[in-house]
């Protein structure tokens, strides 16, 4: 298959591209829509909103999730908020400013046209969610409240206490539920996608496993939409839910979809530090805390005094010192690296010295404890539950952790991958955040793709399609089913000595130590040597008990870790070829004199989209050059 990357960006000025696209796009006659079956995999913000909207439009939708209910997808855990260029604050915000902030925040590695469209539809998202009954925070006058967030100097973030993701997801879940009741969407929960099926080069269905009965099933459709989230769990410890995995997108990659920029991983600066080896996941403390919390470490190395006993002049408020104009609100990648730096200097706090303080005493003095409770009460409670410490009386301890992945399957302007009929939305695609995502932009992108972009663009594919779908007993489905069965049987028959968790933990350690917050050529080479060895050991020595014919969490997990063991290598490989530092990808060899990321726009201003060539084979890179017509590329400065 020869691959050409056609981004299909509409012509014209960036501000008019989306409206031009909609004027020119082909439509599907309303009476014909029910003839098209669409598979949506995933029921988070992107998947649920897409499935609901496609159902409303009259398509036949099948929606899949591995959880017991679509309401549990991990979008639910997003805390802080959702951006929209409403300018309700009258503080100078605009669609252009949100567009610019997102491009700059992404370190000039995102596609301009997509990002502008995102900023345009951001305002519709808020309207839609309010109409659904999402209980956003309000002021006494009854109007919507906003807060500010990292990487922006305007207040454009809408929120519902510390549970914005939950409320937006429940809004989408309810819209989805309405369509399930109306019969336009059939929901398959506790069902996992294990392969993508291509017929004549088009995505025409998936193979799934019913997690309760173990039944392997073929589902045929006119198009497949992947909304399966990110791959942060390749690091074992992350803020992702335990079930989050790369399997759907990685299976699509193995079938020919290109995986773009996997090395762009976001490390979130404000997470609760690791407390021991048994640790199963990391918990994020919303970035919104940095609005009122001040980040510091002791000036002296190895200062073990209780934080409240360290006098003001012996504290280093390093973010305020290094970035006076953004201070504690410096973007995530910058704040994370700064924390690593002070800890590397031996000034970290807490067990193991991998932590910094986030201190609310000044804010409590200024606004009173009640106001702080109102803003962050649930976060402080969560912190106390996990650490046993009260953050009203002493500073929180925080440390960066893997949180979000900007990379994903390559898509064009229509959110279609290089495989015709395979669409990818939300965190699962690569498109809008460049090398770094700004806070409160993930919810925005998931809902933009699901409510407003994909339901429009998918029509263009259908309008040009004559062969809708194939019967589910087509030989290609049968073949894929057999492959899935064989792989599951192989996992169950190894009967080795190590558990799946042990392999996952080992892989995570390789990734975090060598492909984490700071990467070097030699660390990446080391990871690329170690991962295949671990993968081989996995296939010889993993122990997966039980059978494939009933609920078997070990078997589900083994399949996901097996994919991570291949995917980790791709991530490291991408990081190795990108000989520059940008956003969430920091190569120690490429930094300015004061330790900031040093981009190389002449050589690396492209999207690296990888083509699968086989296990233990090097993938091939395809490059999409990023052209900046509207924005002038500059070195990102938050000083």
């Amino acid at each position: 298959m020869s691959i050409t990357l056609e981004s299909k960006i509409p012509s014209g000025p960036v501000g008019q591209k989306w409206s031009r696209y909609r004027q020119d796009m082909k439509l599907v006659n309303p009476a014909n829509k029910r003839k098209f079956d669409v598979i949506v995999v995933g029921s988070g913000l992107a998947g649920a909103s897409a499935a609901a909207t496609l159902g409303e439009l009259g398509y036949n939708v099948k929606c899949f999730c591995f959880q017991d209910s679509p309401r549990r997808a991990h979008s639910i855990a997003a805390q802080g908020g959702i951006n929209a260029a409403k300018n309700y604050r009258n503080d100078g915000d605009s669609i252009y400013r949100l567009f610019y902030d997102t491009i700059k925040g992404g370190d000039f590695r995102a596609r301009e046209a997509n990002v502008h469209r995102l900023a345009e539809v951001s305002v519709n998202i808020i309207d839609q969610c309010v109409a659904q009954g999402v209980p956003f925070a309000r002021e006494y006058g009854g109007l919507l409240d906003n807060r500010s967030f990292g990487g922006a100097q305007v207040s454009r973030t809408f929120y519902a206490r510390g549970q914005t993701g939950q409320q937006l997801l429940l809004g989408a879940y309810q819209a989805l539920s309405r369509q399930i009741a109306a019969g336009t969407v059939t929901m398959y929960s506790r069902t996992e996608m294990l392969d993508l099926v291509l017929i004549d080069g088009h995505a025409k269905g998936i193979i799934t496993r019913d997690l309760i009965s173990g039944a392997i099933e073929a589902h045929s459709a006119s198009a497949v939409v992947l909304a399966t989230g990110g791959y942060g769990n390749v690091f074992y410890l992350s803020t992702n839910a335990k079930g989050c995995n790369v399997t759907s997108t990685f299976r699509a990659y193995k079938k020919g979809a290109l995986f773009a920029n996997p090395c762009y991983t976001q490390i979130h600066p404000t997470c609760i530090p690791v407390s021991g080896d048994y640790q199963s996941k990391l918990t994020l403390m919303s970035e919104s805390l940095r609005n009122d919390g001040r980040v510091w470490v002791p000036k002296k190395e190895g200062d073990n005094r209780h934080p409240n006993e360290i006098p003001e002049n012996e504290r280093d408020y390093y973010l305020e010192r290094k970035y006076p104009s953004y201070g504690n609100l410096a973007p995530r990648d910058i704040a994370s690296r700064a924390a690593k730096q002070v800890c590397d200097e031996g000034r970290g706090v807490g067990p193991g010295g991998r932590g910094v303080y986030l201190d609310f005493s000044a804010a409590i003095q200024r606004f009173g404890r009640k106001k702080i409770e109102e803003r962050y009460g649930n976060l402080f409670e969560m912190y106390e539950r996990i650490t046993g410490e009260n953050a009203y009386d002493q500073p929180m301890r925080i440390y960066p952790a893997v949180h979000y992945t900007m990379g994903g399957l390559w898509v064009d302007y229509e959110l279609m991958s290089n495989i015709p009929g395979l669409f990818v939305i939300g965190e699962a695609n690569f498109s809008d955040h460049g090398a770094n995502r700004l806070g409160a932009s993930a919810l925005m992108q998931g809902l933009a793709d699901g409510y407003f972009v994909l339901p429009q663009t998918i029509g263009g594919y259908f309008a040009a399609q004559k062969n809708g779908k194939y019967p589910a007993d087509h030989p290609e489905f049968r073949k894929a089913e057999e492959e899935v069965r064989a792989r599951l049987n192989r996992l169950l028959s190894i009967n080795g000595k190590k558990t799946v968790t042990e392999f996952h933990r080992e892989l995570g350690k390789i990734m975090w130590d060598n492909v984490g917050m700071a990467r070097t050529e030699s660390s990446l080479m080391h990871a690329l040597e170690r991962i295949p060895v671990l993968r081989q050991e996995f296939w010889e020595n993993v122990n997966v008990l039980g059978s494939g014919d009933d609920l078997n969490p070990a078997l589900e997990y083994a399949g996901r870790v097996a994919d991570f063991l291949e995917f980790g290598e791709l991530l490291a490989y991408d990081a190795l070829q990108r000989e520059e530092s940008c956003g969430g990808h920091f190569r120690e060899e490429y930094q300015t004199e004061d330790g900031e990321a040093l981009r190389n726009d002449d050589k690396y201003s492209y999207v690296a989209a990888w083509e699968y060539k086989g296990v233990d084979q090097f993938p091939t890179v395809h490059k999409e050059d990023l052209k900046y017509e509207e924005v002038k590329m500059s070195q990102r400065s938050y000083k």
Partner: protein
Amino acid sequence: MNLTLRVWRQKNAKTSGQFVTYQATDISAEMSFLEMLDVVNEELIKKGEEQIAFDHDCREGICGSCGMVINGTPHGPLSATTTCQLHMRFFKDGDTITIEPWRASSFPIIKDLVVDRTAFDRIIQSGGFVSVSTGGAPDGNAIPIPKEDADKAMDAAQCIGCGACVAACKNASAMLFVSAKVSHLGLLPQGHVEADRRVLNMVATMDEEGFGNCTNTGSCEAACPKEISLDNIARMNRAYAKALFKNKLA
């Protein structure tokens, strides 16, 4: 610390289950309850025994996946806390801990501690939404909503659908869950339009699914990890009576 666990093991919905005793050794106080079970499961696998199946996902107390009855109390001894957020510092060396699945005929057991809660989804499908399709929504600030109302709606909307309320109730009633959604939407102007239809349909589905009625003992509120208040049940009863009456008149 070292603990003795009595865990409900059941192969599937068709077979009967029983308690099996396990030893959990070298448990650190910093571990979460689920991390403690992870440790036990790793040891079981090493011994060639199948791990204890339990639902879990976000482990941040928000997805509503996890839930087990710990020493007779849904989500365990700590109030306003999901199982995943319960930490072992609330137990002491030598404790015996009994772990069971939610017990309610509307939540059939799938395996070990995993139950089928899809009845909750069907209740939402019967009316737990505002019927607005994508597009055409008025400006977000077109309808001002008093902060007090928005706050109350948010209090109710925090429900995570874990099912602890049903597990705690001697009648296996889902009134707290259903009333939280009825209140959340009913308190907002956007939800007013369909309020009558919503409450009638959701209550009818709740009954069809076999959940019991409310006898005001309040155990649901006590077990709720999100502190959803009994006031919601009163609010739903009012809305239900009103809707029924209006329906009859029509």
